[in-house]
Every structure is written in structure tokens, then in C-alpha cells.
């Protein structure tokens, strides 16, 4: 045996398959004490599967796992937590109607003679949060806090319940830059206390900024593990996708030259649009054949603006026009008839997971295929065309949507607007949570639509998304448009600064 103590977590020869499809092949993974270990890879590369095995969510696998040198095999998250492994999922599992203190103590409230000891709980929570450098009133209602703060409190709860190894899944995807910095400070504090962190993210900058070590996955295999200081983003992207992707790389690293078309006709005009406290006095012009990017931090009113354009939310003031004709959509059906199409940020809320692909694609054009009766053969023909032109996998139209990967689902969501192209396509977070390869496909599809003369609006809180798609960019801040970039060169830093 060596002098060194056994690592807190060691996996050897892990393989796992789902119904004959290999998700992990012979993976060796070692996590050291006091280390932040970044994990990157395309969707479906195997990183989530590996973490779910570690966190006890998948009990069936081949290979060996050891904690502090002791062999273990978890069959439930409870067993993993008892061994000191906690996970903070992308979708937080906090209870919004309880106080911060109750959330920290969730499931283990201190009691006095069988009655919850509120004072001890509030004091304990305050101390514990202060130790981590989180400044929040433990009596505040969880739901009233910003999402970044809620996430820190969930992290605090996982640590408080005794975790020595914490797995963070996409922790920065919903955070603004200052919130990311605060998260990083907390994580550094956790590292200093000797505990270990696994940091899974699609945001390569964030991974490189916080990690000590970075591991890349591709097609279920572990490709490389390197010290974060010795590599850069290009190196990571190459390991993740295995081939060069210059176009996308540009939007990640360098500055992008915008090509606006000031003389094309305005298809969507917005004047002084306001809705409640979400946004106020928004004026925009979207021209035929251009992509207008709208960038802003989480909570700046982007999501509400997108919904208002599509008639899902109602504006209090202001006007909208399509091809010069005034439009006041009171329902999504009305907006749709006027020629506006919308793809929301969440795939769950725009697709029918238990229905076949072709029904997902035809839903928005049924009225054009037949007024009263359905014509399934026409529906399938149309769907087959889209499946082929967008290279959706698997290439059949009868597949249930739920069995497709995220990137392919996003293509289906776009495809349903392609049969009879709308005048204006509004995309909210079109590439969120997608791997580089799928992102590139989406960029290509959207640019293709633009070149056909469609007016496209892309709203995103990810600067890379806006930069890789937009011909013109406006920046939103606290519900108002504060800056426009057109016909110039713009970089990520400029966007962040403006927001």
C-alpha cells in the first residue's frame, strides 16, 4: 500500500448501458480531497450517468467504486448521502413556501421534547450559512429569494447534511455573473475545508475558472483528465467534439462582427411595450432576413417579453405591428394567425413527450392540412421531410418524442414552424443545456430560416447564444432596453458590461 491516504472517491472500470445502448464504457475516475473537479462533455457523453451512479440514482452498473478506499455500491441516494455524497441538481429541490432555516434543516429539524425548536433552528442555520459566507436572513421565505441565493442555500443544506463530496449539475446556467462569482467564492471556501466538489457544466469558461482538474467525456468514454491551469477552451472543445468547429469557437472566444440590414422591410414593429413590473417601454424593429438578438441577465424581463410577443402574456401598454398592421394578440392562437411563431426555453413545455414525432410537428399546421378532418398521411410526409432535412435521429416519424435526445427534441420544436414559415420566429434560449454539436445544428437551422427572409428574434441570457446567432443585438437591463449593437464588432465582454 502507498503512503498516501486513499482518495475520497475512486471508480474503476465503470460501465453502464441502457437497454443495450452503452452509456459508459470502462471509466476510471478519481476525485481527490479538497479538489474542484470539472466535468465537461456533450449531452449524452456519459457525465450525468456517471454522477448518477455516484449519487446512488443508478444502482445497476459494472465496475468498482470506493470511498476512502472502502468498497461501496449504492442502491439509493439515501445510501450515498449517508456515505457523504450529496448532489445539487440543475432543477433545485428547495421548498419555496418554507423559510431558509427550514430548508437548511429539511428532514432533520432540531426538536425539544418532540416539538420543533425554532430558535435553535434559526440560530443554527444562521451560523452555518455565515460559515459558508452566505449572507441571508434565515427567517426569509425561500421563494422570495433570487434563484442564485436559493441555489447557495441548497448547497448549504447538502453540506449541512454531512456531505464531504458535492456534485453540482449545471450550477451556473441560471446565474448572472455576480451570482456566479459569489457561488465560486463559496465553493472555494468549501474546498479550503478539505471537501471535494464535482462541477458539471456546459459553460467552459466557468469550468476553467473554478476547477483544479478538468475531465472530458465523449461517447461514454473518459477522454482526458488534465490540470485546469494547463489547458484552454479550444483544447476542451476539441476533446469534447473531436473535430474543429471554428464558427462556434468564435462566439465563445473572440469578437463577432455584426451584419445588420438597415434597408430591409420591418416585419415586426414594437413601440413602447410594457407589461406589469416585468418590462417597460420596449421598442424594437425586426427586419425581414435578420436575426435580432436580445441579451440580458436572468430576471431582466426577457422571458416575459418573449411571451408577450406571442400573446401568452398581455401587454399593459404599447403597440405591436406585423407588416405594418397593428396587432394586439389576446391569445397565442391569434399571434400564430398573424404570423408569429414561438419556441419557449423549456422543451418540456413545448413538446408532447408521449406522442410520436410527426404529431409534434403537425400540431401547429393542422388547420392548413385540413380544415375539419385530419390527414395523417400528409402529416407524416411533411414530418419525414423535416426529419430528413434537419437530420433528426432516429430518422423515423413514428418514434415517441420522449425517447429523443435533447438536441433532437429542439430540432422537432423548430420543425413545427418550418412547414409554412411564419413571418417572425421568436426563440427563447434556443440552445440552453445543449452540447456544442447540437448548438451548431440549431445555429445552422436558424440562419437558414433567416436567409429565407424570416425575421428572427433570439432572446437569451447566454452571451454565446446571442453572439453566435444575431445580426443585431439589443441589451435589456431591468426591463428596459439599454443598448443596441449594430454594424460593428462586439464581444462577450461588451455584452456583459452593457447588461
Amino acid at each position, binding site marked *: 500500500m502507498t503512503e498516501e491516504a486513499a482518495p475520497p472517491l475512486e471508480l474503476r472500470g465503470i460501465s453502464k448501458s441502457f437497454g443495450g445502448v452503452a452509456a459508459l464504457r470502462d471509466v476510471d475516475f478519481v476525485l481527490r480531497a479538497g479538489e474542484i473537479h470539472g466535468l465537461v462533455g456533450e449531452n449524452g457523453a456519459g457525465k450525468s450517468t456517471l454522477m448518477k451512479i455516484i449519487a446512488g440514482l443508478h444502482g445497476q452498473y459494472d465496475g468498482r467504486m470506493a470511498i476512502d478506499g472502502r468498497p461501496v455500491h449504492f442502491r439509493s441516494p439515501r445510501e450515498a448521502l449517508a456515505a457523504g455524497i450529496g448532489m445539487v441538481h440543475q432543477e433545485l429541490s428547495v421548498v419555496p413556501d418554507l423559510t431558509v432555516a427550514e430548508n437548511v434543516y429539511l428532514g432533520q429539524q432540531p426538536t425539544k421534547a418532540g416539538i420543533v425548536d425554532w430558535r435553535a433552528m434559526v440560530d443554527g442555520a444562521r451560523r452555518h450559512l455565515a460559515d459558508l459566507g452566505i449572507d441571508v436572513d434565515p427567517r426569509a421565505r425561500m421563494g422570495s429569494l433570487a434563484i442564485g441565493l436559493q441555489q447557495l442555500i441548497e448547497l448549504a443544506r447538502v453540506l449541512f447534511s454531512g456531505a464531504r463530496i458535492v456534485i453540482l449539475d449545471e450550477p451556473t446556467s441560471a446565474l448572472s455573473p455576480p451570482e456566479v462569482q459569489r457561488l465560486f467564492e463559496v465553493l472555494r471556501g468549501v474546498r479550503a475545508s478539505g471537501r471535494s466538489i464535482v462541477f458539471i457544466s456546459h459553460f467552459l469558461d466557468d469550468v476553467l475558472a473554478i476547477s483544479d482538474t478538468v475531465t472530458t467525456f465523449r461517447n461514454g468514454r473518459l477522454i482526458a483528465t488534465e490540470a485546469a491551469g494547463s489547458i484552454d477552451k479550444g483544447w476542451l472543445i476539441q476533446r469534447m467534439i473531436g473535430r474543429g468547429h471554428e464558427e462556434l469557437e468564435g462566439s465563445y472566444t473572440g469578437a463577432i462582427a455584426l451584419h445588420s440590414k438597415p434597408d430591409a422591410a420591418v416585419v415586426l414593429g414594437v413601440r413602447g411595450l410594457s407589461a406589469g413590473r416585468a418590462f417597460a417601454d420596449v421598442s424594437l424593429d425586426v427586419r425581414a432576413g435578420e436575426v435580432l438578438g436580445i441579451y440580458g441577465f436572468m430576471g431582466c424581463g426577457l422571458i416575459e417579453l418573449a411571451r408577450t410577443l*406571442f400573446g*401568452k402574456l398581455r401587454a399593459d401598454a404599447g403597440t405591436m405591428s406585423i407588416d405594418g398592421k397593428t396587432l394586439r394578440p389576446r*391569445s*397565442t*392562437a391569434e*399571434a*400564430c*394567425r398573424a404570423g408569429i*411563431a*414561438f*419556441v*419557449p426555453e423549456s422543451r418540456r*413545455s*413545448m*413538446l*408532447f*413527450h*408521449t*406522442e410520436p414525432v410527426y*404529431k409534434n410537428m403537425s*400540431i*401547429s399546421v*393542422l*388547420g392548413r392540412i*385540413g*380544415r*375539419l*378532418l*385530419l390527414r395523417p398521411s400528409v402529416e407524416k410526409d411533411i414530418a419525414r421531410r423535416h426529419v430528413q432535412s434537419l437530420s433528426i435521429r432516429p430518422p423515423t416519424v413514428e418514434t*415517441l418524442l420522449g425517447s429523443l435526445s435533447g438536441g433532437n427534441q429542439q430540432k422537432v420544436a423548430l420543425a*413545427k414552424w418550418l412547414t409554412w414559415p411564419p413571418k417572425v420566429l421568436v426563440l427563447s434560449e434556443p440552445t440552453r443545456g445543449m452540447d456544442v454539436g447540437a448548438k451548431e445544428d440549431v445555429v445552422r437551422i436558424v440562419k437558414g430560416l433567416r436567409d429565407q427572409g424570416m425575421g428572427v428574434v433570439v432572446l437569451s441570457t447566454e452571451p454565446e447564444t446571442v453572439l453566435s446567432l444575431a445580426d443585431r443585438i439589443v441589451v435589456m437591463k431591468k426591463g428596459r432596453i439599454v443598448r443596441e449593437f449594430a454594424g460593428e464588432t462586439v464581444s462577450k465582454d461588451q455584452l456583459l458590461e452593457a447588461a
Partner: protein
Amino acid sequence: MTVFLRNQMRIIAPFATLIVLVAFFSLTSRSFASLDNAANVLTQISVTGIIAVGLTFVILCAEIDLSVAAIANVTGIAVAYFTLQEGYVNIANVPLPGFAAILLALLGCFMLGLVNAAGITLIGIPSFIMTLAMMQIGAGISALLVRGQIAYAVPDLVSLLGAGRVAGIPCLVLVAAAFLLAGHLVLTYTRFGRYVYMVGGNREAAEYAGVNVRLVLGAVIVISAMCSGVAGMLGVAHFGSAQQNEFDGYLLDAIAAVVVGGTSLFGGRGGIGNTIIGLLILGVLNNGLDHIQIDSFLKILIRGLILLAALIINVYVQKVRDSA
């Protein structure tokens, strides 16, 4: 093949339940398995069947209509109210020609359905609560119309469809079959039918696809009220009288038929085929228990337990399927 089977489980499981019930009663009772009794079963489920057609639309949209029996009762009473009654019937009614009575009764249930639809889609009251209120309103209107009395006469057409026979087959069964067939055709082959499934499957996604969700919801609620109204009129003719609380048992029977048949209470899956099997399960169960020698008080409990078993199978099948 296994995937295919799994997809068909929603219809196979209730169908197997039905076969088992039929086999059981055929073996334990000498009088159950006969052509006459089969006709009895069909007649017994016909009124429930017409109500269940509308309710299938509503449940496919992941909504519920608790006012179906009350609306059936009101409509049945209304059609009698507008018909000339015998001298001994002590109701201050308004006799009209038969077609006018039928039209007014249908208009009445249409209006009640419209009120339901407006409450649910325009004001945003959950359908469970809105139709609960409508159940009470319907009972109230029924009470005011008959004031504790019983009416007997209905227009000739209603009387024929509810109690007459064509070539030896009860017209009521034919009407129910026509309603079920029409419901199936609408759900399977029309654009509206697809919207019903999509709104039930994922309401938000339907809205984002530009489907007029409120119109679809309003329409299914009105369809449900109209089906209930027709069932109520024919039911009154079938029973031979129109009175308060006549349809009280039909609410649970209609919901049970739809759900036992395998249509998901969470919307988006199932259909008229399922409802037909559910109706037959309920009909065979109710009828069969009368053919075997057991304590008649025990029958109520047995009926409940068998329904519970059918529901457990339904939920289990759902899980097997969703884990596909």
C-alpha cells in the same frame, strides 16, 4: 413486439378484466349468459353511455365535469315540463308542441354547459369546483320545476327514442351506439379531436403551438352538457317518469366507466374505445351480481372492490407504459 404490446396495455388490461367478469358470471349463474340478458346489459348501460361520451372528451382534456347527472336531470325534467301532462299531475307547467319542448330542453342544457365553459375558461375557476357549483344549480332548477311532484309525459319523439324499439332492438341502445360512434369519429379523425388529445397531453405545449386552448376546453364542456342533456331526456322516457334526484347514481357510473375503461384522469390518453369497455365492465358487473346468489347488501361492497381492482390495474398499466 413488446413495445407494441406495451402501447396497447391501456386497452388490453380493461378488456381482460371484462373477459374475466363475463367468464365468471357465465360459470356461476345459469341465467347470465343469454341473448336476452345481453340486451338487458346494453339497455342498462345506454343512459350512462351517452353521458360517458361527453365525459370522455372532458377527461381527455384533463378536466372533470361533476354536473353531468344534474344537467341530465334538469333537461329530462325540462322536456316534461314543456309537455302536456295528465290531469292528476300537479305541476304548473307550460305545455308546448313536442319539437319546441325538445328544442327548449336542448337549449337549456346548452346554456348550462356554456355557463360551465365560461366559468372555467374565462374566469378561470377549476372545473372541479365550477361543475360542483353547477351540480347544485342544476339540482335547484330541477327542484323549482317539479316542486317535489312527478311528471310522466314526454314528447313522442323522446318517448320513441327512450322507450321504443326498432326491429326488436331498444332505440335507446341504438342512440347510445350512435353517440359512441360519433364521439369516436370526432376524436380520431377530426382536427378538433387531435386538439383534445394534445391539450390533455400537455396544455402549455398546445398553447405554444398556437392551439386555442380555451376554445377547446369550452367546447368539450359544452359537448359534455349536451350529451348529458340528451341522456336525461331519453332517461326520463326510459324510466317513465321525471322527478328530482332521478339521475344521482349516474355521475359516479359515468366517471367510473370512462376511467375503468383506461382513459387517463391526467388527460391525453384513452378514448371512446376505452369508454365502451368501461361501460361493459360496469354493466356486466351490475347485472351479473343480480344473477348470482349472494347477500344483496354484500353486492354493494363487492362492486366497490372490483372497481378498485380495475382502477389499480389502470394505474399500474400507466406506470408500465410510461417507463417505456
